[in-house]
């Protein structure tokens, strides 16, 4: 887990749990309605961010490699 990642939250599906912001507060924050968004479009890759994406109950968080654009989560199936 390294390099620069693009991180985005799909607000059409975000269920406002606040869990990503609780577990990776440096990368995610909530707006006044409780929906999450990434604080910055690109960030340093880390286990913490990956775990936040994996644990999102609706898989609203997408991560891709900032250089190659390769999807890291959800993985291409």
């Amino acid at each position, binding site marked *: 887990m390294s390099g620069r990642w693009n991180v985005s939250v799909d607000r059409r599906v975000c269920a406002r*749990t606040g*869990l990503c912001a609780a577990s990776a507060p440096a990368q995610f924050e909530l707006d006044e*309605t409780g929906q999450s968004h990434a604080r910055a479009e690109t960030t340093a890759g880390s286990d913490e961010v990956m775990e936040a994406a994996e*644990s999102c*109950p609706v898989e609203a968080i997408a991560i891709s490699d900032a250089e190659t654009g390769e999807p890291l989560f*959800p993985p291409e199936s």
Partner: protein
Amino acid sequence: MNAADELYWDPYDHSFVVDPYPLFNRMREESPVYRNERYDFYAVTRFAHVQRGLADWRTFSSARGDILELIQSGVELPPGTLIFEDPPVHDVHRRLLARVFTPRRIATLEPQVRAFCRRALEPVTGADRFDLVEAVGAEMPMRVIGMLLGIPEADQPAFRDRTDSALSTEGRGRMEVREKEDFGAEQFRDYIQWRKEHPSDDLMTELMNAEFEDENGVRRTLTDEEVLTYCTVVAGAGNETTGRLIGWFGALMARYPEQRRQLAADPSLIPGAIEEILRFEPTGPFTARYVVQDAEFHGRTVPAGSAILFVQAAANRDPRRFPDPDRFDIHRVTQHMTFGVGAHYCLGAALARLEGRVAAEEILKRFTDWDVDWNAAELAQTSTVRGWKTLPLVVEGTRR
């Protein structure tokens, strides 16, 4: 007297069980901030209000429970119950479980879930009449939780019965709250010891070993009591709710034969159909909270100290959100309120969807046409769940 004066909703009145929707529609349109004096609660029914309220744990607390009777009883709830906690403690506990409940991990259970479902349907294959709830709905969710927790198969029916009776409502329909409610935790106690000696790839083992930083900043593993509480919470939350979903599948597919035929012809439509069933007949029709600071909906104040019900079953049919909401349509793409919203958004949503889809697929692989013997079918409402207790299907078409 105007219409609003006559509007009365008694959540314990069994005459509303069959079709609560006309009343919910009236509440939503005529009295969006409904007050019931007799049972001393408020209720909101519009989608926007339900969404805002459930997402706002600072105003609407879960710490006294999310069931009206629990909130009003003031009973002491054991720590680590997740559903009955507010952030930040809630989030510490939830994150621990979220690691083992990720949608991708849940997806790996599919072959096991399917195998169970096939076994359950075997005895009724070829029958011209059978009770869907008895055959699949009552059994499957607890078996699946058992798979997650690693409970030996032979012991599983007993677990189901004990969890159900802890949450049931007797007589007038109000739940009996015991002085120190444990929701049937005792049943898991023996397994914790046993699991310690026989670790495996299951939720219980994982919970016993997971290291985390607790609310006091201490790195530690869970105590046995905490593991026990988690198991009980998961079993209580995921059993009847999901069982009733399977019953609603059988009932709605009988009521809408044209849409059933579409599903039978094209199983790729099943996930969308499950979402529409969840919207149309949410198995948990409402969720309660305790109001910790004055709140306002629709220009009306709900004072601190009140109990409030967020009626997801009404929100799911709010015409402001869903066009033609009383029409059942498997082709709708929606975001319903059935799994809640905010901090407590259903942890088991991916699992419930998986179970609903697999059950639907396996049923439709065997039976293409059925009706329900409506006179013999029985609908029940407990303090948390609404759905079919008995649902005799009359089989009219099978696959060769």
